């Protein structure tokens, strides 16, 4: 079967700015795929090309076995990063409208919209205007809009931003359910722990290029098991100067140390034992968070 999305050497330039610079990407069907990268890296542009909202200057984009375009678009549910609804419209009509734009007749779209609103706890708000809703509720409305007509491919740009933990969980459950029922999901996020928990595969985009991609396991193994979590008592210690240490992330409660290639964790342990009282010393795979920072570097993220 064809991939859900397959992008080949896509290039898109705005004025003098090359937003996407030769991106190639394959998203197999039926998985949850994470698109990560700093702000302005080209995630949204890539997503827009998949939806045929903008066309690449060069390269090819295929979606669900056909060139990106209108007929593919009807099978995609899309939640853009910039949230937007008609503020003066009634909630039910708003969702219904989004359903009809995906090809549904008004009556069936209305039924489906009502069912979703009931399910996500917005049943009583059906006949209220969108502007009367809280931000979180509006985000739910928009999420439902993306789910209308049971899309084969769901593209969610930062679906969790601005949500409280309860609603984050609700969104996550719906996503997992849709995925179980066969939908492929692509979502972008800045929350690396979320991506780590949900995604089978990821692609890291930086400055318009894919700098890292593949299954989460393969990405991690590529970086080796060379991270150490330490917890200790005592201070005044400069971990950075210890043997084999490449970089240190201080989380307050504990620290994550990334070792240089080939460095021996045992040497680090010996060096630590002499200086502080160790409560925890654990050799782990690097977190996605650390891989991200290492790949993208410490430069300001809004380049």
């Amino acid at each position, binding site marked *: 079967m064809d991939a859900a999305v397959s992008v080949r050497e896509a290039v898109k330039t705005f004025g003098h700015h090359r937003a996407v610079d030769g991106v190639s990407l394959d998203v197999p069907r039926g998985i949850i795929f994470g698109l990560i990268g700093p702000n302005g890296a080209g995630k949204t542009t890539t997503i*827009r090309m998949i*939806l045929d909202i*903008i066309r690449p200057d060069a390269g090819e984009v295929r979606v669900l076995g056909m060139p990106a375009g209108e007929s593919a*678009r*009807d099978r995609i549910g899309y939640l*853009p990063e*910039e949230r*937007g609804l008609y503020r003066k419209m009634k909630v039910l009509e708003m969702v219904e409208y989004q359903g009809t*734009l995906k090809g549904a007749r*008004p009556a069936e779209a209305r039924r489906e919209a009502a069912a979703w609103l009931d399910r996500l706890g917005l049943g009583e708000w059906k006949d209220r205007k969108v502007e009367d809703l809280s931000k979180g509720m509006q985000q739910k409305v928009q999420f439902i809009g993306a789910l209308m007509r049971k899309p084969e491919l769901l593209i969610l740009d930062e679906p969790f931003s601005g949500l409280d933990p309860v609603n984050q969980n609700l969104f996550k459950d719906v996503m997992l359910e849709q995925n179980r029922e066969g939908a492929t999901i692509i979502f972008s996020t800045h929350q690396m722990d979320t991506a780590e928990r949900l995604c089978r595969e990821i692609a890291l985009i930086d400055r318009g290029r894919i700098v890292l991609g593949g299954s989460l396991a393969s990405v991690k193994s590529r970086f080796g098991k060379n991270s150490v979590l330490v917890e200790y008592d005592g201070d005044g210690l400069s971990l950075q100067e210890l043997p084999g240490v490449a970089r240190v992330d201080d989380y307050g409660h504990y620290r994550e140390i990334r070792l240089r290639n080939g460095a021996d964790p045992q040497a680090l342990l010996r060096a630590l034992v002499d200086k502080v009282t160790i409560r925890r010393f654990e050799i782990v795979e690097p977190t996605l968070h650390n891989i991200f920072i290492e790949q993208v570097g410490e430069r300001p993220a809004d380049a």
Partner: protein
Amino acid sequence: MHKLLMVIRREYLERVRKKSFWLGTLLFPLLMVGLIFIQILLADVETGNQRKIALIDTTGRLEQRFREKLAEEKLKDGRPAFVVESHPAGEGADVAARRLLPRVVSGDLFGIITVGKDLDAEKNFRLYAKSVGNLDVQRTLQGALRQAVLGVRLEQSNMKLEQKELAALLAPIELESFQVAAAGEAKRKGFREAYFGTFTFVFILYMSLLLYGIAVMRGILEEKSNRIMEVLLGSLSPDQLMTGKILGIGLVGLTQMAIYTATVGIVRLYIAASPLAGDWSGTLDAVSPARMVYFLVFFILGYFLYTSLFAAVGAVCNSEQEAQNLQTPLVMCLVIPMVATFFFVANPDSTAAVVVSMIPLFAPMVMFMRISVLTPPFWQIALSILLLAGTIWLFFKAVGRIFRIGVLMYGKRPTVPEILRWARG
């Protein structure tokens, strides 16, 4: 096609469901009828009062004739319309007049007429009044004075005439104008009738083109600033969105026009069947079916032309403030022909009128003006409509390109050369 219909449906329902739409639609004809009614009412009130005129005649020779002539003007109840009181010039007409001014201010006197020494001198006659805008009264007073002066002059040349004979000598002739239609029939129609009849329709055309154009522009600006554009473009092509919006709002306009036309049609039938038909022939003529059809044709063409341009403005701007500058030339294109209605109605066949009625941006209004005061050759109407339709087609293509790029751009508004570059694609 389904999506396009859905966009049209939303745009249409959103507007037609609003109370303000129905308020505007129903209030407007009511307002028009009300205005006419008030005018009739005012005219009645006006004729109910006698006007007091103070005459300060330095020559002392005009009073008699002036009085006699003015006495012919009667109010509805038969009383004379004017009461003339004569005042001595004394130390000069100006000084005498100044003394009477407070009575004009208080409203006791309608006006003061001063007559200088030399009847043949220029600027010898003056009227001081609180309102000098009432053309009918002014004309009456001027006529009476002229007749009095003529009498004096005739006397000086030894042609003694009675007032009656003088009146017969001076009896004005009236030139009635008839408009010859293509079919060869001639209809009586004066300039005033032609002007006001045309202007009313041109004004409605102007208002609706402007209002609906701005409605389309606002709709697009709203979608941009609400950031809903991207959601929509996840389902629709920009062309579908733009076309749907223009057609949807256009249908709202047509609904409104249909209501107006139906109202006019009913009123027309009612008047035509009533004994008033003769008096109202000018009005009946103004709302003839042929004219209504042309009105609709030019409304629709003008609507597509202007909304496509307003849509482009909406697509490249981020806020209404930003859109102000860009929409100004469009508004000007609409205002100019309206302001020039007088010229085009007076000279519907001039080269200027013919040329301007071929320029697509002005054609909807100017061609309509020409059609309503004379019957231009059919080829001119056809050519004008053809040019309009062609321009609309070109605009739609160009604006579609601008729209596609513009709707997803936020931040700095593109410059006009940039926009034109997009339009060329």
